[in-house]
């Protein structure tokens, strides 16, 4: 255990979220309790509309819970902040800044990272293997490269929690696998807490220490599945028997949920 893993405790306490819509108040997430240990890699898994993004955005500070509260290292979340890095599904790099300046943005505005923002940015560029593209603009990069920069930009603030909302959803499967592997490597190096939203079961099992399966109507936690596969996880991990059994456990919960949703809609 390294000493860097002391921050990144996330406590979700009695959180529920309702949205005001034209058809009235709609419950997006019912009362949810969840504790995430410092350095833990947690995947939120579930079908579309079950409130994964809503819950993640509560931790990020973009959505204020209707009831309950969220604590990060004991401090209540009241809005977005640099202690929680965010990686979005869509490419959200600033098109008007070079790759290097995108990564340097966080350290520049917060003063985090110790060294000068440019030095921090160069370090991260090296880490994601894109030093050659430092002075390029984001649109000159492929989707996978852009998302690597997105991760580096979030990490350059040295946050204690990294929040990722289907970050690899738009990538082809080849690139996706590569990104998953390098994310795990980065996570090991930084030892930070990761909350990762996905609806891809294989992705969740490959990445997570623990999978939170969510169900819809209303959004809620239906299962809490520990993933005790050995690390580091390589290509042989996905063919192992334990991988398959965890994967099947997740699928069972998801199938039960879809059947329930189907009957709800039919009845």
């Amino acid at each position: 255990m390294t000493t860097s893993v002391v921050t990144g405790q996330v406590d979700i306490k009695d959180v529920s979220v309702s949205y005001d819509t034209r058809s009235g108040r709609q419950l997006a997430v019912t009362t949810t309790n969840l504790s995430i240990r410092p350095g833990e890699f947690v995947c939120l898994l579930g079908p579309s509309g079950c409130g994964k993004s809503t819950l993640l955005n509560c931790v990020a500070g973009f959505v204020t819970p209707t009831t309950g509260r969220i604590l990060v290292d004991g401090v209540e979340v009241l809005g977005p902040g640099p202690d929680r890095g965010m990686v979005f599904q869509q490419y959200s790099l600033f098109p008007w800044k070079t790759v290097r300046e995108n990564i340097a943005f966080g350290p520049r505005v917060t003063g985090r990272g110790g060294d000068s923002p440019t030095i921090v940015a160069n370090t991260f560029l090296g880490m994601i293997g894109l030093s050659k593209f430092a002075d390029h603009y984001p649109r000159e990069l492929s989707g996978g490269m852009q998302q690597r920069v997105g991760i580096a930009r979030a990490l350059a603030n040295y946050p204690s929690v990294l929040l990722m909302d289907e970050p690899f959803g738009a990538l082809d499967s080849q690139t996706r696998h590569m990104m998953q592997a390098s994310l795990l490597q980065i996570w090991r190096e930084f030892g930070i807490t990761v909350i990762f939203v996905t609806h891809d079961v294989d992705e969740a099992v490959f990445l997570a220490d623990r999978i939170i399966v969510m169900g819809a109507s209303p959004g809620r936690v239906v299962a809490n599945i520990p993933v005790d596969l050995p690390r580091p996880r390589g290509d042989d991990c996905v063919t192992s028997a334990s991988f398959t059994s965890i994967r099947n456990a997740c699928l069972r919960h998801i199938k039960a949920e879809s059947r329930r949703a189907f009957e709800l809609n039919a009845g």
Partner: protein
Amino acid sequence: MKADVPKPEPALRIAARRLLALRPPRTLLLSSLTVILLFCAWVVVTETGLANPLFLPNPEAVARAFMEVSTEGYQGSTLIEHLSASLYRILVAFGLACLIGIPLGVLMGTSETARALLSPMIEFYRPLPPLGIYTLLVMWLGIGEESKLALLFLAALPGLIIATIQAVRNIDPIYVRAAKALGASTRTIVLQVYLPAAGPTILAGMRISLGFTYTVLVAAEIVAASAGIGWMIWDAAKFLLSDVVIMGLIVLGLTGVALDMVMRLFGQILMPWTRKQ
């Protein structure tokens, strides 16, 4: 060690290169063809006597007017003096309009309150004909330079404000969220997210607005000017000097195109990320 890092081309050089090749050759050829055909039509119509030379002089006469006004001047001022008087008015008025209109537009685009408070004023005077406003401005500010600058300023302003509001409101909220998650303050978000994200649309608004300011120039120079391209055209028309009128219009048109090109060049230097590769 850094030898393999590709150096991006300097902004000015790229801009210059792009200015030289602003359009692909095919469109340039076609456009030149239109110009040449129009010119030929002008020659034919005047040479065959189809047109009354009093109203449509031949190209030669217009060229002569150009030479004469350039060297000897028209009503006491040479062409360059007329042109600089007009450009001075346009650029000062337009510059002021940008300095006020763009921040105002950012404010109105980001704050619903500001938009509600200020838009009635702009929406009301925007459709008024410039000459109508001008009579009031002359009563208030006199017939000097102030009322002319004020008219051009008022002509430039609404287009700039409206374009900036649109630009700011159409920004993808993901950029603002990303900046907030990275710890940016409101000030940083305005300066480093709203402004650059809205930049290309603001520039388009500036180009349209400058064009509109140009169309108001003649109206602004009708009253009590002694120099200015607009005034020269107006004055020459009174004496049926159609060669001077046409020459003035061509000069106005060409400087308008040149100004627009300068604006695009500025855009490419200030916003290098919008450059086409």
